């Protein structure tokens, strides 16, 4: 009896020890990954706060200054010589424009795909999905020839048009999954209540998918904002965006690490803030509606 009892106790003790070890390893693993994940961002923040001398050091202690930000944005006397504020405005205009156009085109298409069965539906949806996976340069190379000829090179319109490759597939696919989640009987009830199809849509369906539309719009905005290859190839100055603009501080004779860091952070802030506000939605959004939360 005593043998068994002591055996059980040892087993119990090793169980506790193993669990404690598991907890320690979990914590160590998480800390290691997040150090890897967050250190670069922290370092950029530090670097952006350094002045011209400190930027060449790797110290963590220094007297911080906002000069780099002022210089990058062209505020005050320290001008970095790059119209970064204009790039920022271009990013805003083209991203918002692209999302609005995609909503206008995508909401009816997503609704049609969710509610009606019609010939060519899956072809249309697949074509849109293929835009998501197609290498951008397939379209860019011909466009880089066409755009200058029709005056769309380096223009907001040209950028908004080509960004549809990024925003439209996302919006259509995800909104379709939202519309499909809604029972069609709610709209049918509205029809029988005496509302027209348009009214039924606006009155019953739209309010119910509004959160989804908001979230997918923000995600589409983030992807449009973060896009690099389109502005790189199809703009030169007027419509150039922050992603391309951030590169302008690298190179040259003078080291401008602090400016580069500040520019990178400015470019990263809008998507980060928006992303943190739609955390719950990201699973569905990033998987194109194929994984629902």
């Amino acid at each position: 009896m005593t043998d068994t009892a002591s055996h059980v106790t040892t087993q119990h003790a090793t169980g506790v020890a193993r669990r404690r070890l598991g907890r320690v390893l979990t914590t160590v693993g998480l800390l290691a990954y997040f150090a890897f994940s967050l250190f670069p961002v922290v370092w950029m923040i530090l670097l952006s706060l350094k002045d011209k001398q400190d930027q060449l050091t790797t110290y963590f202690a220094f007297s911080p200054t906002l000069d780099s930000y002022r210089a990058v944005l062209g505020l005050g006397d320290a001008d970095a010589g790059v119209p970064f504020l204009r790039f920022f405005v271009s990013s805003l205009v083209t991203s918002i424009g692209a999302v609005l156009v995609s909503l206008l085109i995508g909401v009816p298409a997503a609704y049609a795909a969710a509610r009606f069965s019609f010939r060519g539906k899956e072809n249309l949806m697949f074509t849109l999905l293929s835009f998501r996976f197609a290498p951008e340069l397939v379209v860019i190379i011909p466009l880089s020839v066409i755009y200058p000829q029709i005056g769309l090179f380096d223009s907001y319109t040209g950028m908004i048009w080509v960004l549809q490759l990024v925003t439209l597939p996302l919006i259509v696919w995800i909104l379709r999954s939202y519309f499909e989640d809604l029972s069609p009987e709610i709209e049918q009830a509205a029809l029988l209540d005496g509302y027209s199809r348009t009214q039924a849509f606006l009155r019953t369906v739209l309010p119910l998918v509004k959160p989804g539309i908001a979230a997918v719009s923000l995600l589409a905005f983030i992807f449009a904002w973060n896009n690099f290859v389109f502005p790189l190839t199809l703009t030169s100055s007027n419509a150039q965006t922050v992603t391309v603009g951030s590169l302008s501080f690298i190179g040259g004779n003078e080291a401008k690490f602090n400016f580069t860091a500040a520019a990178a952070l400015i470019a990263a802030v809008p998507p980060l803030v928006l992303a943190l506000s739609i955390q719950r939605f990201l699973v569905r959004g990033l998987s194109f509606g194929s994984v629902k939360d």
Partner: protein
Amino acid sequence: MASVELRGIAKSFGRTTALADVSFTVADGSFFCLLGPSGAGKTTTLKTIAGLAEPDQGTVLFDGVDVGDVEPTHRNVAMCFESYALYPQHNVRDNLASPLRSPRHRRPEAEVVKRVTEVATTLGIDHLLDRKVGALSNGQRQRVALGRVLVRPADAYLLDEPLTHLDAKLRASMRAELKLIARQDGTTTVYVTHDYVEALSLGERIGVLNEGRVIQVGTPQEIWEQPATVFVAQAFGKPRMVLLPGAVVDDPAGGRFFRDVSGSLRAPLPEGADVAVGTQLQAGFRPRDARVLGPDAAVPDGHVAVRGRVAVTELIGAQIEVSVEVDGTLLAVVGDRARLGQVAEGDRVTVVVPAGRVLMFEHGPEGARIGP
């Protein structure tokens, strides 16, 4: 008000056929019950009437006019969905008021308020008017859905299982209430249910639907007493009708009669039935039509008898349900305890049924009834 007629409606979704051939007429102002098991096509039939489902074949007529090209919005029917289909973003009041605020049926707001209150009171949901529908129980939601139908006059009410999610007591009282409303309003109503008691108690006429086909249309009495097929006979009544397989044999005394496989039941063929000797048939009776007598009791005049052994007895209040085993088949008999007398499990008994209450069908689960 309008009469509603379906002619040869067929509808399939992909490879599954929802409706194969549905035809029936609902007279103006009458109450029509559509009964069938799940998957029979009841909801699709209702949606076809409403214009929400477009039939592949066939026509829907209101007052004899083809309404195939009329949109749901303009058919002027009201429907209570089995899923309720309430507007989740609105409270009960706004859900109920929705039809009366629509462009098609708009009423002055004062009238809307009055009407909504009336209907809510009738349905016992007047204390819930300011609640969001998400905060309601299923039974309450169902009544809101029903209220949204009753709140406005319509050419036809289409009700899809409107009472299923209510508890038993409320269901009985709502059934009575609905019957009253239907009689007062005189609105043409198509009522879908899988519950034969509802169908029998509410319907002026009943249509029995199975696998997308209308098997029989008739008054409750016709359906009960002269079911067209085995399916209809077994769809009504609980416990359901038990059938004994057998065949037509020659009576040495002249004529023919039915004898079941075990030879324990002999019954005259229904009047006017002309069935060849040797034809496979099945015979059955409603459990309430039978009585249980002692093993050696004389068979009363005009009755047929089956002998067997009591397998199980169940007391349900003043009622008793007796299962009698006859050659491997369990026959059910139900009645008052007083009428059925004392029976114990294992007793040998004689089950007697008035000859006229024995129904005979052709062979198979879809077998048609023999006789007038």
